C-alpha cells in the first residue's frame, strides 16, 4: 500500500494472536517452520486467531475487514483497543504504539479516542438509553450535566430523540443498534471500531442503518475499521477492503481491485456472485483506440460517449439506445472503445480489456 505512515490512524504491524497455554512455543514453531492452523492445533493445542496481519487505515477512511465466521476478524479488531493482547506484533494508534501504554492511558484511549459498536449491541439492560450513551463519559468522571448534553447530541445524531429515558428492551433491534452507534460516537472519538454492527438486523433495517452510518461517517470524518461477513456490505461501505481467511489477510485493496483482480480462488469465489454493475468502471473494460481501429476500422462521431469513470450500469443505459460501440473519452480525446461484447463480459466479471 502506498500510504505514508504518518497518515495512518490505525496501523497493525505483523500482528499474531495464538490462543492457548503454549502460545509462545506455538508462535515460534509457526514462524520458523510455517506450520498450518491444524498442525498448531494438534501439536500445541493452540488456536491461531490472527496470522501476521499488517495493514493501515488512513484518516477518515473506512476500512472493511471481510471474512466468514471463525476467520479471526473479530479477534483482529479487538487488538486495536487491546481488548485482546497480541501474541506478537505492534498496533499503532495515530503513531503511538498502544502495546506500551499503561492501563490508565489505555482506559483513557478507549473512552475518548476509540468508539466501538458490537454485533450483539451489548447495551446495558439496567440503564436507560441516555445512561448507556453517556457511559464512556461517566467512567471518565465527567459531570452529569456535561455528559447528558453530549449524550443527547449523539442520540439526536442517530435520530432517537424522545427515547432517552427508555430501557434497551423497550426498543427494536434496529433502534438498539442505533443506541450502540450513539454510544460509540458520544465521546467524539477519532476512531470507530464496528464489529459486524448490522449483521443481526433484517435486510431493510440493515440498509437503512448502513446509509445512516455512511452519512454520519462522511459528516464526522471518523476513521473506521468495519468488520463484516457480507461482501455486499463491505463493497457498499468500504473505501478499502481486506479479505480474511483462517486468520490471514488474503487480499487488501479497493472494492474494485478485489472484484476485478481477486488474489486467489478463495477471493474469486467470494466475488463471483457480486454485481459488477456499480463497481467496475468503463476504464477497466475498454479496448485501447489503436487496437480497436486496427481490428474494426475508424471511430464514428455518432457513437455514444462515456467517461472512464462511468460505471457499467451507465454504459448499459447508453448501449441500450444504440447498436454502436461506446467511445470512452477524456476531455474530448478518445481513450478507448467498449463494444457490446466487452460490456457483457465486464458484467460477467471477465474484466480485463478484451482481446
Amino acid at each position, binding site marked *: 500500500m502506498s500510504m505514508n505512515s504518518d497518515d495512518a490512524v490505525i496501523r497493525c504491524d505483523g500482528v499474531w494472536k495464538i490462543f492457548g497455554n503454549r502460545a509462545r512455543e506455538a508462535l515460534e514453531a509457526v514462524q520458523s517452520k510455517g506450520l498450518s492452523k491444524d498442525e498448531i492445533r494438534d501439536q500445541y493445542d493452540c488456536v491461531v486467531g490472527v496470522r501476521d496481519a499488517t495493514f493501515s487505515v488512513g484518516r477518515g477512511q473506512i476500512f472493511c475487514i471481510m471474512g466468514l465466521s471463525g476467520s479471526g476478524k473479530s479477534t483482529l479488531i479487538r487488538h486495536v*483497543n487491546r*481488548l485482546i493482547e497480541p501474541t506478537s506484533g505492534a498496533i499503532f494508534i495515530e503513531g503511538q504504539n498502544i502495546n506500551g501504554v499503561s*492501563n490508565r492511558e489505555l*482506559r*483513557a*484511549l*478507549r*473512552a*475518548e479516542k*476509540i468508539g*466501538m459498536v*458490537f454485533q*450483539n449491541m*451489548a*447495551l*446495558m*439492560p*439496567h*440503564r*436507560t438509553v*441516555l*445512561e448507556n450513551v453517556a*457511559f*464512556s463519559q*461517566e*467512567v*471518565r468522571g465527567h459531570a*452529569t450535566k456535561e455528559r*447528558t448534553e453530549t449524550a443527547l447530541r449523539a442520540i439526536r445524531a442517530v435520530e432517537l430523540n424522545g427515547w432517552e*429515558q427508555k*430501557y434497551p428492551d423497550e426498543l427494536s433491534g434496529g433502534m438498539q443498534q442505533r443506541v450502540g452507534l450513539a*454510544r460509540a460516537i458520544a465521546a467524539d472519538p477519532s476512531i470507530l*471500531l464496528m464489529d459486524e454492527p448490522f449483521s443481526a438486523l433484517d435486510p431493510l433495517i440493515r440498509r437503512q442503518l448502513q446509509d445512516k452510518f455512511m452519512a454520519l461517517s462522511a459528516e464526522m470524518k471518523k476513521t473506521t475499521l468495519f468488520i463484516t461477513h457480507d461482501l455486499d456490505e463491505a463493497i457498499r461501505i468500504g473505501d478499502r477492503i481486506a479479505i480474511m481467511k483462517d486468520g490471514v489477510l488474503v487480499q487488501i485493496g479497493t472494492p474494485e481491485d478485489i472484484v476485478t483482480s481477486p488474489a486467489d480462488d478463495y477471493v474469486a469465489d467470494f466475488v463471483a456472485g457480486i454485481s459488477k454493475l456499480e463497481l467496475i468502471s468503463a476504464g477497466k473494460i475498454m479496448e485501447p483506440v489503436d487496437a480497436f481501429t486496427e481490428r474494426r476500422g475508424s471511430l464514428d462521431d455518432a457513437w455514444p460517449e462515456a467517461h472512464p469513470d462511468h460505471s457499467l450500469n451507465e454504459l448499459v443505459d447508453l448501449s441500450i439506445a444504440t447498436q454502436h460501440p461506446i467511445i470512452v473519452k477524456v476531455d474530448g480525446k478518445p481513450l478507448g472503445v467498449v463494444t457490446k461484447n466487452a460490456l457483457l463480459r465486464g458484467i460477467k466479471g471477465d474484466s480485463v480489456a478484451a482481446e
Partner: protein
Amino acid sequence: MAEEQAFNPLDPFSSINLGIAESADGVKQWAISNRDIIQPVKAFFNDIVVAIDTGLNAVPPLIMLIILTLIAWQAAGRRTAILVGACLVALGLLSPDAWSLAMTTLAIVVSSVIACFVIGLPLGILAAKSNTFEGFLRPVLDLMQTIPAFVYLVPVVMLVGIGNVSGVIVTIVFALPPLIRLTSLGIRGVNPSVVEAARAFGANSRQILFKVELPLATPTILAGVNQTIMLALSMVVIASMISVKGLGNEVLRAMGRLDAGNAIVGGLGIVILAIVLDRISQGMGQSGRERGVRHWYDAGPIAPLVRMLRPKSETEPATPVGLATNK
C-alpha cells in the same frame, strides 16, 4: 500405645488413634487462655444484637405490624402485603407473648443476615473473579452446609460462651453458603459481551463491578439473601440450645416438657415469621420494571410521597445504580 500391639490387618482402623479429637479439643484450651481478647469482641456484638432486639420490641406491636405490612407492600405489591398483614395478626394471636418472642427471633435473624451479607458479598465477588478462590471455597461451603450443627455448637460455645453472639455465629455458619454461591453465580452469569462493552468504553474493574456486574447480578444475589434468611430461621431452634431467646427457645422448652401445645405454638410462630420474611425478601428480588413501573418508587405506598416531593419539571435525575435500586 498399647493398642498398636494388637494391630489387626483386617481391621486396621480400630487400632490406630491419630488423636484428632484430642487436638481438636485444644481449641478449648486456646479459647480459655485467650478469654481477654474474645470477651470484649463478644460483648460488642452482643450489644448490637440486644440493641436490635430492644429496638424491635420497643415498637408497639400494632405499629410494627403496620410498618411490616407497608414494607411488604412496597417490596412485593398489595397482594403480598395483605398476606403479610394477615400472617402477622395470626402470629400475635398465637399466644399473649408470641409477638415479643417473635421480635426477639427476628432480631437474631436480622443480625445474622446482616453479618452474612457483610461477609458473604465480598467472598462471593472474590469467588466470581477467581477460579482458584472458588475452587478453594467450594468444599468449605459444602462442609458448612453439611456438617451437623451439633458438631460446631460445642466448639463455638467453648470459644465465646453461650448467648446471642454464639447463636449468630452458629447461624452464620449454616446460612452463609447460599449467599456466597448465588453472588458468585450471579456475577458469573452477567452477559460477558456487556462486560466487554464496558471495558471497551474505558471502565476499570471497580467501575465494571459496581456499574455493570453487581446491578445485573442483583436479582440472583437477592435470591441468595432470601435463602440465607430462610436458613437462618431454620437455625433458631438449634441456636436456642445455646441460650438464644425467642420462639426457638419456646419450642425447645416445650419439647423438654413434652408440652405439645406450646411446641406447636412456637413452631407455628417460626413458620409464620418465615412466610413473612420470605415474601418480603422475594419481592425485593423483583425490580420495579418487572412489576410494570419504571422505578421501584413509582409503585406502592411511597409513590404518592415521591410524586409530591418531586418538582413538576420532568427532568428526572439519573437513577441511582446498583443495589440501592432494590433496597
